[in-house]
């Protein structure tokens, strides 16, 4: 479904160029649950940003359902993020001034399609055990609850691929389990899931494990 070929991103620091992501070949298909690990600063977020259209690659290709999309316009990428590819930002990414329900629905009301997903949002909140928090503001939620809201938000519009940058960092075992179980179930339902993590302990045989080091990705 999504394939990258020789994907490279070069940054410069103190006038020295370095490849944050170096010639990465990667493929993910419906039903895949891929986990990307690697030390801090190895280029995981940069790679995710490129395949979600947040950063433009310097060279290489991105194919989605057989089509080259690496040179698509910002509008096209935004529309794609509202439909096929869902991205969960690293860290806390809830909008502090909007309620849980608004957080989930707003991006789609503001997308070029302008759809109202309120019913779907309530349904997905129930699945995450957050149904009575729909009208709460993020500040009144625990870290684990906030993370679950962010994940729920990524699934609300039924995307084909969900990319989540460290969705389980700083979470206790119980919250980590809730989220991973949800991802596993969704993968079994035919979604493609790609997450990054520092925590190697939860990786099991159902997951495809990739490691990144200094911008170079290898499959384990």
């Amino acid at each position, binding site marked *: 479904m999504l394939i990258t070929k020789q994907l490279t991103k070069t940054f410069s620091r103190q006038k020295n160029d370095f490849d944050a992501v170096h010639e990465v070949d990667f493929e993910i298909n419906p039903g895949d649950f891929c986990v990307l690990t690697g030390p801090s600063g190895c280029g995981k977020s940069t790679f995710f*940003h490129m395949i979600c259209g*947040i*950063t433009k690659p310097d060279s290489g290709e991105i194919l989605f359902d057989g089509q080259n999309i690496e040179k698509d316009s910002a509008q096209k990428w*935004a529309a794609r993020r509202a439909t096929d590819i869902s991205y969960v930002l690293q860290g806390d990414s*809830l909008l502090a001034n909007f309620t849980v329900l608004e957080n989930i629905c*707003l*991006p789609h009301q*503001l997308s070029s399609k302008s759809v109202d997903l309120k019913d779907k949002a309530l349904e997905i909140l129930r699945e995450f055990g957050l149904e009575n928090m729909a009208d709460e503001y993020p500040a009144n939620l625990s870290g684990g609850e906030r993370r679950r809201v962010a994940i729920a938000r990524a699934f609300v519009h039924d995307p084909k691929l969900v990319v989540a940058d460290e969705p389980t960092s700083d979470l206790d075992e119980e919250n980590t389990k809730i989220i991973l179980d949800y991802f596993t179930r969704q993968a079994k339902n035919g979604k493609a899931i790609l997450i990054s993590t520092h925590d190697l302990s939860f990786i099991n045989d159902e997951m495809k494990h990739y490691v990144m080091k200094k911008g170079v990705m290898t499959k384990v």
Partner: protein
Amino acid sequence: MITQTIALKNLGRRPVRTWCMIFFVFMLAASLFLSSVLVDSMESTIEKTTNRMGADVIVVPKEFEREMADSLFLGELCNFTFDKKWVENISAVEGVAKASPQLYMETLDAACCAAPVQLVAYDPETDFIITSWLEDENIPAPKKGEVIVGSLVTADAEGGDGILLFNTLFPVVAHLEKTDTNYDTCVFMTYETAQEIMSSEKWYETFREEPVTDELASTVMIRIENGVDKKDVARNINFKMDKESPVSAYTTNTIMSEAMDASESMKGYTSVLITLLLVLVIVALVCVFTITINERTKEFGILSSLGASTGKLCQIVLGEGFIIGFTGGLIGCAVSAVVLIIFKGTLTVLLELPRLNTGFGYLMMLGAKCLGIALIVSVLASLYSAWKVSRSELHTLIKGEEL
């Protein structure tokens, strides 16, 4: 619409900042509104008075042109006179088609009279001004002892339409239409009636003199022949008359020129003021919008990373500009209109204005214009922020960097 709802919510989140921005726009709209009313009022009074008067050249006693202008434009009462015998000489001057004397008298704010009003006596045989008004309104010429009043003169004597002048009740035979000039506060009569007033006991008691109206004129109104230049006629009159003649001739424009100059300089001042204010308000709004947007880059980044379109994000920012412009503009116009209507009297006295245009239709039109400008200014100020948001790369937005 969802973008408007979010814009409102964003504004509501920072009430002090929002009200400050609304206040800027309010100031702009209110100044624009008030100064327009002042300038328009001045201009329209000058124009209406000139049209209503219908004379091309006016002859007044030497050095009384200022009083004449103040009487015409500001409605100040006047009673200057000169010897009427000069009227004949004036009529004989080349280029003069019609010349008719008018005599001005003022009543006093005493028990003798209803209120201080300007009395204007005219000579029906030569007159071409008042007679033409009467013809237009199908009013018969007043006979001896009868008066005709402007629309703002209240004839309030008991038992019938009459006006008390120097202890004598004069029947009011007609009310003229409203003209929005100072003629609305005048009482018109023929020279014969004027003589009656001047011969009254009360007049003698007041002024200790018994004038003969046939020897007196305050002005001579002149209609020139077709194809002649007004200025030439005025110059001819001044040139042909004896050195010791007590009068000088002016074109209507010259008489009005002081008022016109005043209105021009008022226009100048207000346009400078409004321009300054415009720049100031735009700069202030741009600053505040920039701060507000910089605070929210991360929010825009998050929304965009989840698929929100840049166009919609810009709509939110522009929506905020629109709401501020609309609220500020509306309040500005409404408050100014109310102030104008309530303090109309005080303002005219304070600003030495003849009158203020406070017609509903006019105020509505002007309000719409000012509201439009307020909206444009405010949306323009937010446009800069919207442009910045639309132009920035998503990864800088996500990091929450300053734009």
